[in-house]
């Protein structure tokens, strides 16, 4: 069994994921695999990649749910239900059961910044950590026989050969909706901590006592489309001058 680090540094690097703005485009999923298949440790392999039963190792996956708000009705009937896209990756828990369950010391949590990593040279591929993880965030690479997990792009965030804006995890850098944020959640004055406080960020499954570092921001309440104000109607084009007058006359000719 493997111990969690003592004493801990104050730094707790992690992600804040906004379930309100995530559109489920999978850009983070793809860029994560692209970056991490050629970086930290063994490649993220795919089995039967061109066949009917494709599978492979990914460090980040999006699950999509249809949820019905309180008092709402299902989508086909009232249009009040909404789809929530839930990106799921390692939450770098403070009490990470995947670390304490590891029989070889391959899984470890770094004292200095809280990142949970796998030393693939020590990993025997027993899969106990995948069983222990409450979030299903670890995946076995079948080609290499070692456990793969989110590294928080440890090979990007401290990489001084990168421009400052690129020193964030690949998923955060690529998110076109800016739904993913990276920072120090151990510092109450950091941008991510303020965001969590402001938006009511929450832990996934807190009853599991894993104390995840990553936080999720809840979807904001929304009014049904039918409650929206009607669009303003265009006034007549009589008496239009200038460009619009010319356009109106030109369009009349067609």
């Amino acid at each position, binding site marked *: 069994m493997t111990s969690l680090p003592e004493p801990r540094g104050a730094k707790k690097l992690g992600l804040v994921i906004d379930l309100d703005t995530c559109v489920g485009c999978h850009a983070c999923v793809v860029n994560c695999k692209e970056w991490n*298949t*050629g*970086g930290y*440790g*063994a*490649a*993220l*392999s*795919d*089995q*039967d*990649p*061109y*066949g009917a039963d494709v599978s*492979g190792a990914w460090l980040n996956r999006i699950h999509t749910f249809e949820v019905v708000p309180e008092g709402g009705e299902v989508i086909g009937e009232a249009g009040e239900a909404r789809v929530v896209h839930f990106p799921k990756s390692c939450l770098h828990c403070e009490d990470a059961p995947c670390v304490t369950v590891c029989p070889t010391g391959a899984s470890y949590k770094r004292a200095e910044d809280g990142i949970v990593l796998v030393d693939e040279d020590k990993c025997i591929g027993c899969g106990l950590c995948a069983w222990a993880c409450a979030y299903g965030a670890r995946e076995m690479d*079948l*080609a*290499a026989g070692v456990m793969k997990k989110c590294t928080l792009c440890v090979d990007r965030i401290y990489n001084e050969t990168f421009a400052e804006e690129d020193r964030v995890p690949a998923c955060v850098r690529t998110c076109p909706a800016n739904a993913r944020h990276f920072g120090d959640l151990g510092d109450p004055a950091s941008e991510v901590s303020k965001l969590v406080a402001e938006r009511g960020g929450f832990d996934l499954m807190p009853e599991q006592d894993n104390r995840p570092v990553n936080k999720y921001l809840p979807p904001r309440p929304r009014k049904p489309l039918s409650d929206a104000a009607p669009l303003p109607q265009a006034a007549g084009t009589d008496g239009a001058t200038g460009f619009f007058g010319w356009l109106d006359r*030109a369009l009349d000719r067609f």
Partner: protein
Amino acid sequence: MNLLPPKGDGMRWSNSDPVTGQAAWFDLRVRIEKADGPPGDLAHPQFEPTWYRTGDVPEELRYGQEWGKTE
């Protein structure tokens, strides 16, 4: 910018649709004539079936392994 030959006033018009600006070749002249078909009535070029069609596909992909540590 392609311009048509000068008009009587010496001005040259753009070789594009005067309203939309859509590029076009209004001075293009073409001749169409029937040609002999290719042998076997096949369009050309013809290619061998790809590896995807022949089922010669890998059972496993390890894209990126070549940049990592060798095992």
